[in-house]
């Protein structure tokens, strides 16, 4: 077999698998999003009527229930993402700075910090759900024993539920930040710090002019990856709040899942996920455009 053919032959199975799971469904989903595909047509999707942009119009509208709900879910996931990323980043940075100094037991501490990252989502969010229980949860019990609250706070229903999930998500997500920021810190040559110290730079100046610039590439990756992950947030909300998290904590994924598989509106669900996807592409493009320009100015 010639070399080129062998090369293609070797990637073929992986390409086929991804074609069937990623590419074809994506195109298929695009087609379905223009159809009124419901339970009557699910056995033969080709017979479902074309409705043009109707599904999209429903999702965009401020009048329809679904439009309002979809708008709210975008807002919710935005708040959730902003808090998770910012707080997670600074916690990760703090821990990375701590762990960058050698001390006895450092390897062990680093391993322990990674625990939340590897614990299966379902386990993590189930025990956080347990912690946040109103009557039997440890959080309310602890808050009561120090006198911060007198009555049990209901965390997992209503307005507070979004923030309860956010806390759990931060706990789960910050170790990844710590891990890659620590790796970033370890690429900084020690001599630069030594030179800066000889020149009399203060600790803050060393951080501002050496550490922070060196961490820029890692920070960029961290932020963009997290924006994309958080837009798709599902596990946290589904496990902690259930199939219907309620208006105040609805996110696009839970809304789309329910619309498609509880209300059998597969066409509408596809249109909503296409809209989510389009928004993600816009954000990614803006992000790269913005940073490209900024880094050219720096140079």
């Amino acid at each position: 077999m010639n070399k080129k053919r062998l090369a293609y032959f070797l990637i073929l199975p992986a390409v086929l698998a991804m074609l069937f799971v990623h590419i074809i469904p994506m195109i298929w989903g695009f087609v379905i999003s223009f159809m009124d595909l419901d339970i009557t047509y699910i056995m033969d999707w080709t017979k479902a009527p074309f409705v043009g942009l109707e599904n999209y119009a429903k999702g965009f509208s401020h009048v329809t229930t679904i439009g309002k709900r979809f708008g709210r879910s975008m807002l919710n996931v935005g708040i959730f993402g902003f808090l998770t990323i910012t707080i997670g980043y600074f916690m990760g940075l703090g821990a990375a700075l701590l762990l960058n100094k050698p001390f006895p037991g450092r390897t062990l501490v680093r391993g322990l910090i990674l625990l939340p990252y590897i614990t299966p989502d379902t386990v993590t969010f189930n025990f956080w759900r347990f912690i946040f229980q109103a009557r039997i949860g440890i959080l309310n019990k602890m808050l009561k024993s120090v006198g911060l609250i007198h009555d049990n706070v209901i965390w997992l229903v209503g307005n507070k539920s979004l923030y309860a999930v956010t806390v759990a998500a931060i706990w789960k997500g910050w170790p990844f930040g710590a891990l890659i920021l620590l790796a970033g810190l370890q690429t900084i040559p020690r001599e630069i710090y030594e030179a800066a110290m000889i020149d009399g730079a203060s600790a803050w100046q060393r951080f501002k002019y050496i550490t922070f610039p060196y961490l820029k590439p890692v920070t960029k990756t961290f932020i963009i990856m997290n924006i994309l992950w958080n837009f798709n947030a599902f596990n946290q909300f589904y496990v902690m709040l259930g199939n219907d998290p309620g208006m105040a904590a609805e996110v696009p994924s839970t809304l789309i899942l329910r619309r498609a598989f509880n209300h059998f509106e597969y066409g509408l669900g596809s249109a909503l996920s296409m809209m989510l996807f389009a928004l993600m592409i816009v954000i990614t493009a803006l992000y790269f455009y913005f940073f490209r320009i900024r880094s050219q100015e720096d140079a």
Partner: protein
Amino acid sequence: MNKKAKKLLGKIAFTAAIILVLLFVLGPYMWMVSSSFKSTLEIQGMEPSWIPKTFTLDNYKTMNDIVPVFDYFKNSLIISGGTMFLSIILSTLAAYSLSRFRYKARNPYIMALFSTQMLPGILFLIPYYVMFIWIKHTFGLQMTNTYYGLIFTYTSFSLPFSILMLRNYLDSVPREIDEQALIDGCTRVQALFRVIIPLAKPGIAAVGIYSFIMGWSEILFATIISGSRTTPLSIGLLDYIQQNAAHWGNMMAACIMSTIPVLILFTLMQKHIVQGLVSGATKG
């Protein structure tokens, strides 16, 4: 003296910070473990205690009574094990191709791998389900609620990261080794199986464990394409919380059971997985 005191103070602050971080990380685990050894009465009680007042193994003994959690565990093992196996084969072949050959589709393919990693799962879920129903309707092949349906799905989820990680690993194996094997009369395929794969064992193991953990933890697709016969742990654990009774003690025990396999695998391969994650993040 002043300088010494300052240094001591710094050390104390540093230690305190480390302890604080550890408490934050380990607190929820300690609560999970301690609750799993508590009686239902104590869990329902008003006084929080970190150490069970009456230590009991009941939650472990009865965890399979209310929810068939051992079946879920078995399902998860089959699905994740299958994903691991298939993912290792496909990603080794693809990574070898990407690492050793130069061809037109190579760079576009690498780009495609990077971007599919970022696509939202919900985007495929609906058409994927429609496709499964269509396959069943047209070819009579059952896809939902089957092990192979789930294994196939999870394998292709794990492929982008696995291929990229393994390619990095194979890049670090010198090309001269292949060439030597070719000179010695091996074919390309023999060189891959007899020489490169044994050398790449740690990388392959890392890919396998990553795929296993991925399959073990997935929730979104499992809610739709698994069924009564194939329910994995990741969604099965939710069954402990029912309309009229919440079996938190059993659930915590089951949570611990479902963490253990992942924990063992991760500890075995921590170094390689961390390296893979880090290089993915710092190079991208």
